C-alpha cells in the first residue's frame, strides 16, 4: 500500500527569482516557509516536488520537478530550492511567468530519489538528456560529499562519477557552465554537433570507453527522453551492467494516491509481484531490469 513519503509536506514557497536558462528553460528559486529536511541535512538527489500557482493561472494538477540545487540562505532560514524547468505547456509556462514574490504551492519532498550512489562498486556514469540533467547536479554533489567524508575517516572514497550530458543542440544543454564546476568528468554531446561530441550520449559513451577515458565496468543512472532511456536499458543489459532510469510520468497527485503514474513491471523481477509500480512513490528511478520502458 504505497503511501506518501513520511517527510512530505504541503506548504507555500516564495518565488525569489526566475532566471532564463538555455533556449527554453528557467531556473526557479523558491524559499519554502518550513525546511524540507530535518537539521539542515541536504536533500537526497532526485527527490522531487509538485509545484503549482494558486492564483488560478496554473492548471488544476501541479507539476512534478526534480530538485536541481539547494542554495543556503543567510541566517537560520531553510535553504532555497532551485528547480530547472523546461517550458513545455501551460503548467510550466505559468510557473516560468510567475513574478518574484509570488507564493507557489510546494508539495514534497517526494519520491525515493536515486538509489544510494555511495555504495561500493563500479563508478557511476550519469547519462543526462536535455532537461533530464536536473537530478544529476546534486547526485554529483552527494558523491563529492561522500568522498570528502571518506577522506576524513580514512576510508575508501567512492569513485568520481562521469556525467555525459546530451541534447539536440547547444541551447538545450542547460546550465552547462555550472555543471562544469562540479567534481566529475563532464562530457557533452549534441545531435547537431553545436556543442561537444556530435551524436548521442550512448555513442559518446562508446567513444569514451574505446578511448580508455571511461572504464568498461560501470554503473549507469539515466534521465532524459524515453528513447534515450530505452537505449541505455538495452546498452546496459547487453553488457550485464547495473542501470537505473529516472522516469518522467504524468502525475496526478505525486503522493501515491491517484494511481495515474503507473509503469509496467517485468514479471518475475524484484518489482514483479504487481503488474505496475507508481513512479511517484516507488520511483522516480527504477532499475532497468525491473520495468518496461
Amino acid at each position: 500500500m504505497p503511501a506518501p513519503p513520511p517527510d512530505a509536506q504541503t506548504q507555500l514557497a516564495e518565488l525569489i527569482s526566475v532566471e532564463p536558462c538555455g533556449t527554453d528553460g528557467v531556473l526557479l528559486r523558491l524559499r519554502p516557509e518550513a525546511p524540507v529536511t530535518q537539521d539542515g541535512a541536504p536533500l537526497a538527489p532526485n527527490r522531487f516536488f509538485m509545484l503549482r500557482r494558486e492564483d488560478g493561472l496554473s492548471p488544476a494538477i501541479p507539476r512534478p520537478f526534480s530538485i536541481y540545487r539547494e542554495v543556503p540562505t543567510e541566517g537560520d532560514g531553510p535553504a532555497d530550492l532551485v528547480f530547472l524547468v523546461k517550458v513545455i505547456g501551460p503548467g510550466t509556462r505559468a510557473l516560468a511567468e510567475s513574478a518574484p514574490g509570488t507564493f507557489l504551492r510546494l508539495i514534497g519532498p517526494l519520491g525515493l530519489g536515486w538509489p544510494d550512489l555511495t555504495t561500493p562498486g563500479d563508478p557511476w556514469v550519469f547519462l543526462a538528456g536535455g532537461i533530464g540533467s536536473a537530478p544529476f547536479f546534486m547526485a554529483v554533489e552527494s558523491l563529492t560529499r561522500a568522498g570528502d567524508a571518506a577522506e576524513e575517516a580514512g576510508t575508501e572514497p567512492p569513485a568520481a562519477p562521469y556525467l555525459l550530458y546530451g541534447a539536440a543542440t547547444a541551447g538545450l544543454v542547460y546550465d552547462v557552465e555550472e555543471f562544469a564546476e562540479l567534481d566529475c568528468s563532464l562530457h557533452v554531446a549534441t545531435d547537431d554537433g553545436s556543442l561537444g561530441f556530435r551524436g548521442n550520449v550512448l555513442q559518446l559513451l562508446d567513444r569514451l570507453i574505446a578511448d580508455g577515458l571511461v572504464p568498461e565496468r560501470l554503473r549507469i543512472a539515466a534521465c532524459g527522453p524515453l528513447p534515450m532511456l530505452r537505449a541505455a536499458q538495452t546498452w546496459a543489459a547487453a553488457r550485464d551492467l547495473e542501470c537505473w532510469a529516472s522516469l518522467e510520468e504524468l502525475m496526478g497527485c505525486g503522493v501515491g494516491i491517484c494511481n495515474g503514474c503507473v509503469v509496467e513491471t517485468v514479471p518475475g523481477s524484484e518489482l514483479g509481484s504487481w503488474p505496475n509500480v507508481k513512479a511517484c512513490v516507488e520511483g522516480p528511478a527504477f532499475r532497468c531490469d525491473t520495468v518496461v520502458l
Partner: protein
Amino acid sequence: MVDLSVDLAGLRLRNPLLSASGTFGHGLEMGGFVAPEALGAWVSKTVTLEPRHGNPAPRIAETEAGFLNSIGLENRGVEHYEREVLPTLVGADTLIVTNIGGKQLEDFAAMAERLGERPEIHAFEVNLSCPNVQGAKLQYSTDPDLAERTIASVRTKTSKPIFAKLSPNVARIGEIAKAVEAGGADGITAVNTLLGMSVDWRSRRPGLALVQGGYSGTGIKPVALRCAWECARSVSIPIIGCGGIATADDVLEFLVAGCTAVQVGTASFSDPGLLAGLPAQLEALLESAGIPRLSDLIGTIRDGREAASPSASPKPATQVARS
C-alpha cells in the same frame, strides 16, 4: 463558536467534510497532510472482491478546469483490505466509510457480507457509477431497476448505513435516487465523474489509453450541484454532494442546495492538505454571516424568482424587446 456538526444517516459527523473515494487512499495514508480528526469521515478508494490491476496507461490527462482519469479501480482486493488496511484504522479519531465496487450484482452483496459488520467501518458507499470499468456502460447507475436491486442486495448484508454513489451521466438522476432509496439506501453520494475525453489533434491520439474516462475538478461543479439538488428534491434520505468542490464557499453552496455533507476529491491533488484548512474556513464564513449552526443551512435554497423571495425587494418586470 460555530457548530459544524451534521447528522448523516444516524452518524454524527464533526463536520460535513468527507474525502472523495479514489483521491485519498484506502486507509489513512493521507494522515500526514490531513489529521484524521479534521474530517467528518474518510472515504476509501473502491475495494473489490478480487484484486484489479487497473487500466493501461496513460490513465490521466489534463483538461480544462480539471482532469480526466481512467484508473480502472486498481486495488489489491478485499482480502488485502481486511488484512493490511482495516487494522490501521482501529481507534482512528474519525468515521470510516468503505467504498465497495463490483463487476456483477452478486459482487456487491459478497463485499457487504464480508465487511458488513467489521467494527472499523462505520458506513459503506456503494460505487454504482465508476465510468472506467465495463466499457463505460454505467449500467448500475443508469438503470433504476438494477440500481435498486444492487442496493437491496447490499442492504441484506449489513446493518450499517449505505450510501449509493450515483453517476451524473443520466438524464433524470432523481429517478435513480428514488430507486436506491427504495432499495434501502441511507444516503446518496451525488456525483461520480462525468464521462469525458481529450484528444491531441496533431498526434491524433486520445489523452487516455482507453479514450473515455471520468472528468472531475472545478469544471463539473455546476453539473454536480444540479444533480445533488435534484436528488435532494426527489428523496428523503440525506445527500452527500460531490463534484468540483474546492473551497468553503463551494461546501456551503452544496449544503444550501440540499446536501447534508460533501466530499472533496480532485482539489486534494492540487493541494493534499487542502481539506485540513476547510473546517476553519467554514467557521469563519458562518461566523461572518451570523449563522451559529452549519446544519441550519441545509436545503435552504430559495425560489429563484427574485419577487418570490421574501427578503428581496420587488422590482418591476423588465421589458424585453424582441426584434
